[in-house]
């Protein structure tokens, strides 16, 4: 009889099964099998059997490893140490098979052989290593060109969309910004010293294919300041093929498009760069030429005050190599947050607590109507002593 009757149920059905994958490793590694059996037990008892991790890690780093121990007695779970290593992915999750194969070899040698490919933040999660394996595994990873990502109170592993590698809409070099910022922040990623986590995600255009605005403390999103570029010939081509151009214009949220049967005209200052017309007519419409980024702050999940969606803190900034302005801004934000936040307070929560006015002053950004859907509805605003003398 099967040792994992409940998990076996999850091998049924058309979708490829993670249980099958786990069994493949369990078949060759007793360590991996222990993990599988503990999982079966959780399925029976409907409760997790992991407990809080102690502090484990690799030499010189404070982050990148999640310590994890089984709460089962040793006679049941002989290998209670099941830590994970978070390995930083290459920009845009592009890989050569050469690199991937090396990774598999290292991991097969040192760990369970299970990989969470990828974690929601973006890392390659090497799932299940014993304490003694962490250091050698890390050194082997370094030797094949991989490094750890973030965990704990640090800058977490960044992520970015594939951008210019395949997408005509990318207004910025997402891969390069990812790489440069990651290199710039190696210390902050590997050595937790902040009040809590800090996530950065980079998307090439307002479509935001990494959901940066919802999941990153700092969302860097490509955009343009001039007009979309319309290839009228291509528009007419679409029309000829039966695409309803009038309907495309009608769906423009700010009503910035007009189609007279021959030409599709845009009112550039009314366009909010929603990407709808670009999506509808990809051959005919492209982003403008004056490109840069909009920066949003504060996206995060539930804890403590409910989920936050990031909001605009810089409507537009140029983002050309070597990204000096971007890097400086990032550092200013990190410093201000580090100095002012309480333990486990994300940067968005801090700004909510102390107010945008203090934040904007600290990072030296001017207030702009682009930062809000609407101005305040309450009369509770502050005047600094200096202002009182100025404004009269």
């Amino acid at each position, binding site marked *: 009889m099967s040792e994992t009757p409940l998990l076996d149920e999850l091998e049924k059905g058309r979708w490829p099964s993670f249980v099958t994958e786990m069994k493949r490793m369990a078949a060759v590694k007793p360590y991996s099998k222990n993990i599988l059996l503990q999982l079966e037990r959780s399925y029976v008892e409907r409760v997790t059997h992991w407990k809080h991790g102690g502090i484990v890690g690799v030499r010189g780093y404070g982050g990148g490893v999640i310590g994890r121990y089984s709460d089962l007695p040793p006679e049941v779970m002989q290998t209670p140490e099941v830590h994970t290593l978070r390995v930083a992915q290459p920009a845009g999750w592009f890989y050569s098979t050469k690199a991937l194969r090396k990774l598999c070899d290292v991991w097969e040698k040192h760990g369970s052989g299970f990989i969470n490919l990828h974690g929601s933040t973006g890392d390659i999660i090497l799932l299940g290593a014993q304490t003694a394996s962490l250091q050698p595994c890390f050194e082997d990873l370094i030797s094949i060109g991989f490094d750890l990502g973030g965990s704990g109170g640090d800058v977490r592993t960044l992520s970015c969309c594939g951008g210019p590698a395949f997408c005509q809409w990318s207004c910025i070099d997402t891969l390069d910004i990812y790489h440069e910022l990651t290199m710039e922040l190696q210390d902050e990623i590997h050595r937790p010293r902040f009040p809590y986590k800090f996530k950065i995600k980079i998307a090439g255009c*307002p479509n*935001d294919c990494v959901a940066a*605005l919802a999941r990153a403390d700092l969302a860097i*999103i490509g*955009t343009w*300041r001039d007009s979309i570029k319309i290839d009228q010939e291509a528009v007419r081509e679409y029309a000829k093929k039966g695409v309803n151009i009038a309907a495309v214009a009608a769906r423009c*949220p*700010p009503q910035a498009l007009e189609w007279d049967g021959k030409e599709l005209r845009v009112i550039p*200052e*009314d*366009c*909010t*760069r*929603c990407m709808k017309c670009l999506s509808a007519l990809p051959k005919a419409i492209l982003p403008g030429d004056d490109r840069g980024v*909009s920066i*949003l702050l*504060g996206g995060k999940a539930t804890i403590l005050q409910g989920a*936050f*969606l*990031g*909001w*605009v803190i810089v*409507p*537009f900034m140029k983002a050309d190599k070597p990204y000096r302005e971007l890097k400086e801004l990032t550092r200013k934000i990190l410093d201000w947050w580090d100095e002012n936040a309480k333990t486990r307070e994300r940067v968005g929560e801090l700004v*909510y607590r*102390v*107010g*945008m*006015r203090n934040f*904007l*002053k600290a990072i030296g950004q001017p*207030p*702009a*109507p*682009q*930062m*809000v*859907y*609407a*101005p*305040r*509805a*309450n*009369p*509770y*605003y*502050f*005047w600094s002593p200096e202002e*009182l003398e100025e*404004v*009269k």
Partner: protein
Amino acid sequence: MSGEKKYITDIGPPHYREMVHPVLMKNYGKWRYHEYVAPGIIKHVSMNGDEVYMVRAAIPKIVSVYFVRELCDIADKYSDGYVKFTSRHNVEFIVTDKNKLDGLLRELRERGWPVGGTGRSLKAIIHTQGWVHCHTAIIDAPGLAKALYDELYDYFVRDDLPGKLKIAIACCLNMCGAVHCSDLAFVGMHRKPPVVNDDIVSRLCEIPTLVASCPTAAIRPAPEKKSVIVNEERCMYCGNCYTVCPGMFIHNPKYDCLSMWVGGNAVAGGPPEFSRLAIPYLPNNPPRWPECVQAAKKVIDAWIKNAKKGERIGDWIKRIGWERFFTLTEIPFTDKHIDDFIFSLPTFRTTTQFKWR
């Protein structure tokens, strides 16, 4: 039964049956439709064919008994001894005889009572008592109302604005009236924390209530002097402590000012909208507050010029966006415009989709 006169209380207001014009009573609940006849005149037609003209005139909200008697004289002559006041404090004469309309209008014109305020017009300004009667008044609402009315007079007697224009004025942050849901509004504002008079506080005020009155928790008890201390950095000058305790003296003519708000309404064919901050500082400049009047005029002109028919100020701003509003009106956007109170978060723009200007 003793010879003592019984002390009567709790009779409540007069019964409406005695107060409503008999023709309105006759057709009570049986109205069929209304028609805008001319600015200030609405015809109501009932199911059994009766026709009534309601003629709307503005009055200065603060009046003398002589004025009310004049009003009664007019009503006796033209509307059978009955009038109605509206929820915005206009008066309405209820004319059942069409032939009396001209006379009524002539008489009102002669007395200088503006007739209008119906349809897409400037409505009566909802305002408060100001220096005429209130101890927390920072400005004089009746005075500013008069100055605004003089400037905007034509918009009351015409009805061809893009939409209704509802203005409100409150002389302090208590915002009596409709400031928080008006197309355009002014509020008197402090800009300095209260000065604590320990003597008054200790004698007249309940410390826990006083401490609790502060929305930002800027007030701490100071038990040693049976008074309180204000953390000036946290104070945003709402004056609520002064309302609760006279020892928290907050008036400061040197710094007190006005603010202007736009885009609110209580119902406009969609969910209601709060008024929102347009200008955080305008000087408190009696007797005619020219800077405020001009600021209002500028926004109203931009609205008239740019709005589509049917759009109230808030609808217009919703269509064009606040970015564009600040561009068109040339009002500077400051850190004060960005909310930092309890419900600030939902006002933050969580998208890259906005206009550059």
